[in-house]
């Protein structure tokens, strides 16, 4: 099998191109010499089966960031037949260096100039024939997002890979890259030979928009306003869908499952309906909100607004020993902590990375959001519920800030903060659809892995040993609850809720599934039951604890693998567990002392 490596700078649409080329067949895999997982896919190009590997974005083959090391190690240890370089046509004047560097290594390369539509708008004219001659490699222009020029680019790749011969892993890569001055000279020559650059940049849309959005004093209020509207939009649009899914699930259970399972023995009926179906169903009813959430996040991310957020927030973050990128990663963490943790790879300083990774788990992720929506709906009036949710987001920020302030001395860094500010882009419907679909798939994967096992275990714990009262003091769950009682009762958390917290350690989605199982109910009945079983002080204390105590097993695993330190991961978890207990304790005992 032949191998095609895709290389390019960040923000050049490299992943969009990869997705378009490989369809939805990509899998995460391991490669020799590389410590992180890379996306790869096997596709048919002409007569050849080709393994396409999406290498991390990099600015320079000389670079010292982890991503740049990954690319170097990959090229050193894995023979490739062809390298496709993706560059942003609008920034061709300085990105072309990578093409020259790879050429210097003697690798067979095809140069793909992406985002040609943006270059057109900027008035940049590229003569691909002249450039191809000057560089000695095929040069194609395309727009991976809109598909323009894609077929031709694919054809060029197919043609090249059919005739190219595998070049072995590059052992003396560093030395071969040595002559940099030469690259500099060639670069100027190639550009002046084949690219027509406009003398003055047109006062583009981006500049106009930035005048407002990056305004020294209005920028931040506008940013938080936009975020607030976004959340309002998610709930407004998501609520009808959520009701719809709940209704559908009830119908299925009433008219299909119940009659079908009526001859089954009581315990099986209980396990299947009260356990698995109600548990997973309760979690599934949140899928529409989560999909919307990720769609909106994707829009914000793909438009380039997040880089603006980094610009606006850097001064504030610097006071906490963090920087603008840390803030962006914190925001990403509101979707899911795991990709946010991995996103910190762009940081060069290990201290800055570790500090950022330490605060990310306090981001109120979408899984925790489900728990909070559910419980606030059960215990607070429609008028108060949004305020309660808002306060939890504030708590999420507050705990992150506190953590950063406490630990910044431990992780001091002087990592220079330099970031590219891409022009605003409009995400296409296709992009959005793919993102939404990815989230649904991600959820289904989690559902099959954790949630079903989780709810079955919860069902077993609450119904065994045989003959006990459901979730009563003699059941296993009751025993576990009693065992944890000395620790959790000062926080107002009872035995049933303790069980859900234990499983919430694995994944927060299980918490609401577990509630459904513990009480053997779903939907409104479950809400009422929960509303009756605790008061608002207990509920808020429970939510505070859920927010802070620990993200989920995947996050902890990612913390460990990204930091490559068991001690760091353990210390981070210990800190959040301790902080959660203290915060809930202070809140619960304080509220009770005040007579609530």
């Amino acid at each position: 099998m032949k191998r095609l490596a895709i290389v390019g700078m960040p923000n050049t649409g490299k992943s969009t191109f990869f997705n378009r080329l490989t369809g939805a067949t990509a899998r995460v895999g391991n490669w020799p010499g590389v410590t992180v997982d890379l996306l790869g896919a096997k596709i048919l190009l002409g007569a050849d089966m080709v393994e396409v590997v999406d290498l991390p974005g990099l600015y320079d083959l000389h670079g010292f960031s982890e991503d740049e090391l990954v690319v170097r190690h990959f090229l050193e240890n894995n023979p490739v037949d062809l390298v496709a370089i993706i560059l942003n046509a609008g920034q061709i004047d300085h990105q072309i260096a990578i093409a020259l560097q790879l050429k210097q290594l003697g690798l067979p390369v095809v140069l793909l100039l992406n985002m040609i539509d943006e270059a057109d708008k900027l008035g940049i004219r590229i003569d691909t024939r002249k450039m191809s001659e000057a560089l000695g490699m095929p040069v194609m222009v395309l727009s991976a997002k809109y598909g323009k020029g894609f077929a031709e680019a694919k054809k060029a790749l197919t043609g090249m890979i059919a005739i190219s011969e595998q070049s072995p892993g590059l052992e003396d890569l560093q030395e071969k890259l040595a002559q940099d001055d030469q690259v500099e000279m060639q670069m100027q020559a190639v550009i002046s030979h084949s690219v027509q650059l406009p003398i003055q940049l047109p006062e583009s849309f981006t500049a106009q928009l930035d005048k407002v959005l990056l305004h020294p004093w209005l920028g931040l209020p506008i940013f938080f306003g936009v975020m607030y509207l976004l959340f309002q939009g998610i709930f407004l649009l998501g609520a009808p869908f959520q009701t719809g899914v709940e209704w559908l699930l009830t119908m299925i259970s009433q008219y299909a499952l119940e009659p079908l399972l009526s001859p089954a023995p009581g315990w099986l009926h209980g396990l299947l309906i009260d356990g698995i179906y109600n548990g997973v169903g309760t979690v599934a009813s949140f899928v529409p909100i989560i999909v919307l959430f990720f769609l909106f996040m994707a829009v914000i991310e793909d438009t380039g607004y997040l880089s603006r957020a980094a610009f606006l927030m850097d001064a504030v973050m610097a006071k906490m020993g963090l920087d603008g990128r840390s803030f962006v990663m914190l925001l990403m963490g509101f979707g899911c902590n795991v990709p946010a943790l991995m996103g910190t790879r762009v940081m060069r300083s290990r201290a800055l990375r570790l500090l950022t990774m330490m605060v990310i788990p306090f981001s109120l992720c979408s899984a925790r959001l489900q728990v909070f929506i559910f419980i606030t709906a059960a215990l607070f009036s429609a008028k108060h519920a949004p305020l309660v949710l808002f306060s939890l987001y504030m708590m999420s920020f507050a705990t992150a800030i506190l953590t950063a302030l406490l630990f910044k001395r431990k992780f001091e860094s002087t990592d220079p903060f330099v970031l590219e500010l891409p022009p605003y882009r409009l995400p296409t419907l296709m992009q959005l659809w793919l993102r939404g679909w990815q989230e649904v798939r991600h959820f289904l994967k989690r559902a099959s892995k954790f949630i079903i096992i989780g709810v079955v275990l919860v069902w077993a714990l609450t119904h065994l040993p045989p003959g006990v009262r459901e979730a009563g003091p003699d059941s296993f769950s009751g025993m576990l609850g009693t065992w944890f009682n000395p620790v959790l009762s000062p926080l107002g958390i009872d035995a049933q809720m303790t069980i859900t917290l234990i499983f919430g350690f694995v994944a927060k989605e299980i918490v609401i599934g577990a509630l459904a199982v513990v009480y053997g109910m779903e939907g409104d009945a479950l809400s009422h039951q929960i509303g009756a079983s605790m008061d608002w002080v207990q509920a808020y204390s429970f939510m505070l604890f859920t927010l802070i105590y620990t993200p989920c097993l995947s996050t902890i695993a990612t913390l460990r693998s990204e930091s490559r330190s068991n001690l760091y991961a353990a210390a981070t978890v210990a800190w959040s567990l301790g902080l959660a207990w203290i915060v809930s304790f202070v809140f619960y005992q304080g509220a009770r002392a005040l007579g609530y």
Partner: protein
Amino acid sequence: MTDTRPLAELMPGDNGIIARLKVDEALYQRLSAMGLRIGRPIQVIRRAALSGPIQVRVGFTDLILRRVDALNICVAPAA
């Protein structure tokens, strides 16, 4: 080489030519890759509030960088 100023002191709208990069090897590489090279014209677009980062334009690329880091980039007046 008489009249260079640190990039951090330039005001929005000011132009100049990058004259010297007083940075370590790793950052030098990275700045070069992003287009910040000696001899290239640079323009300051805006400065964030609270002594936050500055936004500069080199070629067609807009970059943001902290003022502390911009102190180490020396800019000569545009010809």
